[in-house]
């Protein structure tokens, strides 16, 4: 790898930007593919790029054949992140479950009685208001944002901030009725129907979950489904 490409990979990782290094196993020539650009020894053909982007999306490195060439795609994605708004009972289950699934988890809640180290051991806590917290955390395309407070004062600003970014998953706790009311409030805040449709609500796969841990499981399962492109995405 040329030193220049190595430094470019390091910068991407520092900035938490996804990249893929494509190596021609025949010639050793390499190209670094960014979200919307490429650089390196040789420019990849437009026809080849969708395969690279699919590998990035699936988080799957591997060898691909393109015409008579054999290429290795190294996917270098930043860790997945989960921002939980609301240090509530469900969050106490969802945070450690998501850590096991490989997520960097941050719990946002200005109510310190909820967002305490005792309730969330080894989880990053943020006590700012959700809109400020999200502005600082900058959710990207590999970040999920889930609002769990039930309190519009906290959930709504979090959702508005999340919808302004490219988060792969945005979810909000609440019944269908609660969600309908949320639609009206967010419309007043300038969130149109297509933006609102990105919110998974009622949140989680319909497993018939009852306990906080089961609801947490249904949310994590839906995050995986959306991320990995399983069936019925966008329900």
């Amino acid at each position, binding site marked *: *790898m*040329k*030193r220049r490409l*190595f430094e470019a*990979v*390091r910068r991407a*990782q520092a900035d938490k930007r996804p990249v893929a290094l494509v*190596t021609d*196993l025949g010639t*050793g020539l390499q190209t670094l593919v960014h979200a919307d650009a490429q650089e390196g020894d040789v420019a990849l053909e437009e026809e080849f790029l969708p395969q690279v982007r699919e590998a990035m999306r699936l*988080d*799957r*490195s*591997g*060898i691909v054949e393109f015409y008579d060439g054999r290429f*290795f795609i*190294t*996917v*270098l*994605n*930043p*860790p*997945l992140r989960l921002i939980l708004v609301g240090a509530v009972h469900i969050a106490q289950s969802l945070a450690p479950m998501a850590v096991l699934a*490989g*997520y960097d988890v941050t719990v946002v809640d200005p109510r310190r009685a909820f967002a305490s180290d005792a309730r969330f051991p080894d989880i990053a806590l943020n006590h700012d208001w959700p809109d400020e917290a999200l502005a600082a955390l900058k959710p990207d395309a*590999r970040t999920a944002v889930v609002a769990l407070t039930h309190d519009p004062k906290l959930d709504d600003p979090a959702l508005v901030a999340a919808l302004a970014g490219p988060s792969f998953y945005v979810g909000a706790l609440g019944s269908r009725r609660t969600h309908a009311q949320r639609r009206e409030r967010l419309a007043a805040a300038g969130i149109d129907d297509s933006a609102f449709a990105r919110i998974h609500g009622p949140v989680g796969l319909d497993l018939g979950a009852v306990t906080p841990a089961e609801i947490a499981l249904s949310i994590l399962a839906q995050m995986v489904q959306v991320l990995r492109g399983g069936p019925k995405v966008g329900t």
Partner: protein
Amino acid sequence: MSLLSADSATVLEQAAIWLAEGRPVALASVIATWGSSPRPVGSLMAIAADGAMAGSVSGGCIEGAVVYEAQAVLADGEPRLLRFGISNDRAWEVGLACGGQVEIYVEPVR
């Protein structure tokens, strides 16, 4: 697999430290596996010219051989494609105890 990405960042960070110290570095990537193999495709290992290593490409079975090959790569600047496993004669010396096969690409950072 996100854990894998986090792992790669750690390996490349160590490689950057070695490079900053003026120590030549080679990178080894698992590019294909067959059967059971302890580290998935995309796993990274960095090797300094003096034999120091970070990360892994197996469960410890073949790292020694990869370090040896990496030093050769650093000596002549040519990337190498290595294959380890039961079908390889060298398996008896440095093969994978699990019976899997693994293909590894080793390249210099220059």
